[in-house]
């Protein structure tokens, strides 16, 4: 697959107005998004996600580095011809109806926008019956749906969605997820910025985690989640000397469920951190050789949330000096 969006060593430093303090929002950030994928950019508040999207959309000028969309540098306004964007905290002119708004913004994006196209878009996001209602009467969820329709108004190849499910009820969220999936089937590339990790986990094919302006990790979601698989093992007690030798095996933390070692039981709970099935079997063979009897093995894959927290923690979670 060819890269539709490419960023090379992007850096952005903001200078505060009065204190003349430099704030580094992005630090040599490189990224590549392929055609037809749903890409998720994650990061804590102030990690630089919005700055990155704004640079790519020509709203913010990078301090150094470069980026391009479909081969056109982002400093050229023509690079945005095939781009749709739903910003976070968007504020559409509330005196317009949904139809008027889509007509005006559609014409700004594509030069033309017919009533049939607008109806089709509104129908797609479940807003057709509100087409002629002023936007000021919309709820947050309706606003988000209309915003998504706006991002699709010019039939873009690349769609940036910043917190698209913000304020949307669970049923609406599922509909938006289905819409994103169907857009991907149509060959669209979707770039998602979201804090709702469970949502991203359900739709993204690839993710990147950004922290303090730097790329912490990036890759296919399934690969990242399987990089470190944890097996919960219940067995007879493993001698201390053996545990010291086997760094992959750790006693399971005592949880609310009561899991962990109990003094009155002959069975204990352990966690085996391995990267592959073969590695697991090597560890199990060592345990058996030492006469440890295994009661059960359960495979636990990391959730995106655990992956995210670990990635940010390992990078240093202090948010001091982080930009917007």
């Amino acid at each position, binding site marked *: 697959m060819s890269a539709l969006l490419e960023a090379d060593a992007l850096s952005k430093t903001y200078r505060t107005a009065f204190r003349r303090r430099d704030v580094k929002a992005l630090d040599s950030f490189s990224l590549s998004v392929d055609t037809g994928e749903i890409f998720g950019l994650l990061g804590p508040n102030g990690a630089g996600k919005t700055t990155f999207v704004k640079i790519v959309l020509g709203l913010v000028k990078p301090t150094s580095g470069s980026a391009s969309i479909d081969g056109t540098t982002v400093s050229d306004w023509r690079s945005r011809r095939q781009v749709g964007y739903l910003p976070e905290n*968007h504020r*559409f002119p509330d*005196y317009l109806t949904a139809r008027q708004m889509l007509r005006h913004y559609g014409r700004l*994006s594509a*030069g033309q926008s017919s009533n049939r196209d607008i109806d089709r878009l509104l129908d797609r996001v479940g807003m057709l019956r509100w087409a002629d209602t002023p936007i000021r009467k919309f709820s947050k969820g309706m606003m988000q749906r209309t915003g998504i329709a706006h991002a699709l108004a*010019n039939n873009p190849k690349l769609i940036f969605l910043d917190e698209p499910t913000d304020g949307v009820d669970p049923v609406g969220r599922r509909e938006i997820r289905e819409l994103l999936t169907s857009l991907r089937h149509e060959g669209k590339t979707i770039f998602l910025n979201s804090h709702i990790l469970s949502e991203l986990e359900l739709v993204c094919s690839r993710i990147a985690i950004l922290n303090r302006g730097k790329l912490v990790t990036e890759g296919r979601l399934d690969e990242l989640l399987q990089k470190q698989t944890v097996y919960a093992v219940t067995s007879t007690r493993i001698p201390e000397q053996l545990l010291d030798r086997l760094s992959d095996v750790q006693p399971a933390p005592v949880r609310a469920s009561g899991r962990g070692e109990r003094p009155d039981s002959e069975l204990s709970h352990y966690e085996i951190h391995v990267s592959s099935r073969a590695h697991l079997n090597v560890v199990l063979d060592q345990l058996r050789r030492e006469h440890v009897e295994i009661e059960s093995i359960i495979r636990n894959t990391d959730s995106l949330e655990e992956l995210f927290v670990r990635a940010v923690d390992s990078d240093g979670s202090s948010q001091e000096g982080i930009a917007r």
Partner: protein
Amino acid sequence: MSAAFEMMKLTFLELWSRWVTVGLFVASSLVWILLSFTLNLDIVEGSLTGVRILGQDAGVPRERVETASGEAVQQFVTLNMFVSQIQSFVAGVAYWAAAFLGLFAAAPLLPGMLSRGQSDLLFSKPVPRLALLGGHLLGVFLVVLTLATYLYGMIWLVMILKTDLVAGRMYGSILVVVVMFMAMYSVVALLSVTTESSALSLIVTYGLIIASVSFLFRDTLELQINRPWRGVYVGLYHVLPNFAETTKIAAGFAGEDPIGSWYPLISTCLFALVMYVAAAWRLSVRDL
């Protein structure tokens, strides 16, 4: 071009939806209705009747002037001259009414367009930033042109109905009002793209308008100011906009006399040009 046109329409729609255009229409209507009442006052009626009775050529005595040969000649006020004086005065008042109303109405638009949430939507479109700014400015100017045409048009209609005399150059006044509004709005534009504050942009614009009043008395003030500061004052006269002095040009179009000097209009236009270039540059380089 279509993007600029779309932006122009959005600006127009925003003014309409916020009842600003209706407000401008009502305020302008109040101005010309008030004028109609004023022209119906007995004193005005009497003066007009007096001038009419004496005829348009053989009017009432006005003043004695000396000719080149040194002969003293009696000047007369004709109906044309009388009406022309009233029209000039009214044109001056309308100039300020249109400019102030237009500024009040349009000043919050640009900061709103640049505010977070709206700027992201607009400036992420595949349109050059300058086309968006240009479309917005065109929209605002069109509204002011409509307002000035309505205000001046109604005033002149009242004058024609009252005096049966048609001032042929009235369209010039409308043009002067729009050009001067464009000059005033250039300050709003530059400050808005720099600070996003409509309050600050209005304060500075009104400050420049007040400062320009002092340029009306340039001849007197120049002689009164001490030497080191005189240069500064004269420099400011040439650099800053001459909004107040341009009133004479707007009024001149309504009257019969030729325009004395075009310099205030030209220097103000140059000032506006510099402001718009600076605003366009600032918008093209700033982060949104």
